[in-house]
């Protein structure tokens, strides 16, 4: 009957700035999606567990700490172990251009830096789950 897009928005690691994550979560909510936000300072284990239990369609990670490569690698490994590696992952935050390339090579679906219109994020998320 109802097929709502379910998104996990998570903040892995130790940076304490979640304004960006909350704004993106709000934009996705306003686009009619069900957004689960798990709050600050989550470990990769907690994030993957939440994604698995909630059976979300897609995972968004907000990272401003510079540890994006390590964190994404670990999250992808755990997703594989939990049998949910088929769920797309997108990343938002301060990511240097050369790392954007690396993340995409690792299988990250999309990377959104500062200044990306919210509309574009919504579109991309919808596309990913189609």
């Amino acid at each position, binding site marked *: 009957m*109802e*097929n*709502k897009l379910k998104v996990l928005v998570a903040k892995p690691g130790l940076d304490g700035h979640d304004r960006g994550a909350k704004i993106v979560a709000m934009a996705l909510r*306003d686009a*009619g999606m069900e957004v*689960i936000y798990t709050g600050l300072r989550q470990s990769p284990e907690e994030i993957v567990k939440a994604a698995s*239990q909630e*059976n979300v369609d897609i995972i968004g990670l907000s990272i401003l700490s510079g540890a994006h490569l390590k964190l994404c690698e670990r999250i992808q490994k755990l997703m594989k172990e939990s049998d949910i590696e088929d769920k797309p992952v997108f990343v938002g935050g301060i990511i240097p251009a050369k790392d954007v390339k690396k993340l995409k090579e690792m299988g990250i679906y999309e990377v959104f830096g500062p200044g990306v219109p919210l509309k574009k994020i919504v579109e991309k998320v919808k596309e990913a789950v189609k």
Partner: protein
Amino acid sequence: MISEREVAETLSLIEKDPLKAKEIVSKYPERDYFVVGITGSPGSGKSTMTDKLAEMFAAEKDVAIIAVDPTSAFTGGAFLGDRIRMRRSVKRNNIFIRSMASRGAVGGLSPGIYDAVEFLGRAGYDIIFVETVGVGQSETDIVNLADLVLLVLAPGSGDDVQMLKAGIMEIGDIYVVNKKDLDESQKILVNIEATLKLSGIERDVISTNSITGENIDRLKNIVQDHLTVLNQTKKLEKNRKDRYKFNLLNTLFSILRTRYSKIEDLEKIISMYANEEGENNESKEN
């Protein structure tokens, strides 16, 4: 016990289609389980309390939590943030947490919730906590779903006149006055005790602080005592059977809601009803 992955995926199927849900659930063997409803106004501390209680019960039993948050009536979207407060439970391996959006249901619950709860029970969870959306005054559906209802109150949700109104104040099996550290909290406690006494109703009333954990162990023992009684009197089994009837009613309502959600559909019904009334009146005149 079935895998966490299977539980998660089955819950998604259940949420999608309430009719198919019953078919899916019936594949798992029947089993008694205990449903604790946690309700109260927004920001009264329900999630933090659920987290602490779940952790305590998880020492002996497998626990599931369903946390409901509201769906926007305008965009259909939802922001589900209850996991943020469940810092302890998210780390435990024998606690399964699921967030659900209310998706147009008006009683503080979600359309698929009866089937979801029944499924979790059959899947092997012994205690299922259902945290409702932060409720106002009349969201009392939780009474039909839960074996035991905890009504969580906290300072800032109105004066003693609010306690005289029908609705939410009548549904608690246990009245929990949270945020014990605030002065106003003691006043609420006294008010509730007086109101209950005047009505001649005997209920447990307890004041807690869900952040520091003060009195939460006492609350846990009260919940445990209720569970023991429900078990001894075979009430859990009876409740489970009654719950199925409410489940059907709930499904019926959600089907009607989806089918007649557009204004044109409503107008059709209104004109149908008007015609019928007209015919009835005519036949009376004859």
